[in-house]
């Protein structure tokens, strides 16, 4: 079994655009764009996690490039390869051999998590997009479109993905259950939706974890839920608000330096965690987080900035 089949999210990732769950409007307009491939603009997909952005990008590459998709697609993840030089080098080498194959209209560069790039890097990207436009199409993917600079947005057709409604999530989970020969009940599936909040990736992961315990029942779902490290960020926030700065910091450092959570993901999750605490200083806390989000971008050592954030949060405890 290949590594990618181990995880059901990967095993059941659609390969054709038509198989995508929900996102009907987007699928519709993409399909009409495909009727005239050579005219296709660069694309920018934005929206929350686990709703099909990367999936659609990969489907597009399959459908446009057919059997050549592997050689003619460059997939980069800006969160892993932060430096613009890295991106530039790889894009340059990749686009150099273009035009060799007349069977494809263009090559495709998927730049995932593009909102992780600094404004400087994005500015440089703007040139790269232009320089390679004859040969390549970019598909940029971002959770937070406001972090994509305007000149880049203006070079792309923008598609905003929405979270997936309960009935579609449940239907999809049932399909997978059938193929994996699972026993599931309605309450179990409803519980999975509750926990995953329209994030289909999370829903499928939770389904698989629950299945490793036994049937998909509410009780089993409960046992498997809350495994993700997102939960640990909730704990970091709580520790900080309780004034346990040293514990909070140790846990934060473990998340980032042991489990590889990026600083910006950490900030994203801690921001979400604030809304769950129902703290009366909610807006002050959110502003404080925003301040350090900015400082990380201008600073040199994110660890110092995040420690300072946690220390400042102690003010907002009871």
């Amino acid at each position: 079994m290949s590594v990618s089949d181990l995880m059901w999210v990967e095993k059941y990732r659609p390969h054709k655009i038509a198989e995508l769950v929900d996102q009907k409007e987007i699928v519709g307009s993409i399909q009409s764009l495909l009727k005239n491939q050579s005219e296709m603009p660069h694309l920018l997909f934005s929206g929350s996690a686990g709703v099909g952005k990367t999936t659609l990008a990969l489907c597009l590459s399959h459908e446009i490039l057919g059997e050549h998709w592997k050689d003619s697609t460059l997939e980069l993840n800006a969160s892993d390869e932060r430096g613009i030089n890295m991106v530039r080098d790889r894009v340059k080498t990749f686009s150099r051999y273009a035009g060799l194959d007349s069977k494809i209209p263009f090559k495709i560069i998927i730049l995932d998590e593009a909102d992780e790039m600094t404004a400087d890097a994005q500015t440089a990207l703007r040139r790269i997009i232009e320089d390679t436009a004859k040969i390549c199409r970019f598909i940029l993917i971002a959770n937070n479109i406001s972090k994509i600079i305007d000149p880049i947005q203006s070079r792309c057709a923008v598609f905003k993905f929405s979270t997936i409604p309960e009935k579609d999530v449940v239907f999809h989970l049932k399909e997978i259950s059938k193929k994996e020969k699972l026993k599931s009940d309605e309450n179990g599936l409803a519980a999975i939706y509750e926990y995953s909040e329209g994030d289909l990736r999370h829903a499928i992961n939770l389904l698989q974890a629950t299945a490793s315990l036994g049937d998909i029942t509410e009780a089993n779902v409960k046992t498997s839920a809350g495994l993700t490290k997102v939960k640990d960020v909730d704990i970091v926030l709580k520790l900080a608000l309780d004034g346990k700065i040293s514990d909070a910091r140790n846990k934060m450092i473990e998340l980032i330096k042991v489990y590889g959570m990026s600083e910006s993901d950490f900030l994203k999750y801690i921001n979400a965690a604030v809304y769950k605490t129902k703290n009366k200083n909610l807006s002050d806390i959110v502003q404080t987080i925003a301040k350090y989000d900015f400082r990380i971008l201008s600073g040199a050592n994110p660890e110092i900035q995040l420690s300072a954030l946690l220390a400042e949060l102690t003010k907002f405890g009871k």
Partner: protein
Amino acid sequence: MWSEKYRPQSIIDMMGNEDARASFVEWFGKWKKGTKPLLLVGPPGIGKTTLANLAAKQFGYDMISLNASDVRNKNRIEEILSPILGNASILGSPMIFVDEVDGIYGRSDYGGAEALIKILKEPTVPIILAANSDLSTKMKSIKKVVKTIHLRPLPPRLVQLFLKKILKKENAKLSPGSLIKIISESRGDLRSMINSAQAIVTGFEPATGKSFESLDVESGVNAFFKANSIDEARSVLYSLRIDPREKINAFYSSVITSSISKSELDKMLQVLSQADMLFGKIMRTQQWRLLRYLDEILIGLYQKDSSVRYSQYNLSWPLLNRLRWDGKSIKELATILAKNMHISRSTFGTLYFPYMLFCIKNKKMNLDLEENFSDIIEKEIEKLA
């Protein structure tokens, strides 16, 4: 003289200015009769002359060179260069190198630039020029008939790298204070850096004139927090001449591990947050002159009778080890798997890894990975509970 001893022996061995070097080599490789001459422009001591000499050697040319120490008036230039240009075969494969062209001026070099430009227009052999600046009117007219490549001062990181290499070869040591001083004062000029390093190592350390001799980190940080007045703290800070990143980190690890009150800690981390932002800006813009504001920010850490003392590490040993070993293994695992699943390493660690461990623990998944990952997986499964 170290600066000659450590003149790079091949172009690859040179430091910095990669792009410029690459286009320089490319120019050489593609040279043919009529190719525009090349002008290297850049501040002193970054490798212009070295580059020209090495290229001649590597591409097998016999180099005829003229530098500022030669008289370079119209007659001399024509006298020396015309035979080469006219009848190249006499000399095998010759090339011309006019170093320090911006130095052609004055009465003794009368007409030199004009004569040179005439030659530059019809290059029958490779011609290279070098100059520190291309702003004078004479240089502007030269620039019209050549291809220009700019070389820049080397960033402190590379200067430091080169210095450390030399010190290692010389089996010599410098105090952190001198190290940082040499690097910042070199302003990216490697030759001057080598010269001052040699001067200091061989026993000529310029006096600092400060009451505090340069301090090592530990005694520096401690003296800072024990200081009796803010002025004393300030002079300790100034004499702590170490790499700015090291300086900020030393204060950070000392502050974060001390047992001070929450509000005091908050206040001090605010200061360090500001310091880090300044340093980030310096690194990004390479405006090292901004460094002089760093101490003014750090002085905000001073408080009389503070209990903060130096600490080298900002984490406990167990966590530090976990970071080094487990963090490394998980990163390797993430690098393999994240690519396969079209996600970032961060998403892998946060959202996928825990579920995988859970399924493995329940014997419903079998990771067919290399042996060396089984330890970390076992360890992490234990932590799940």
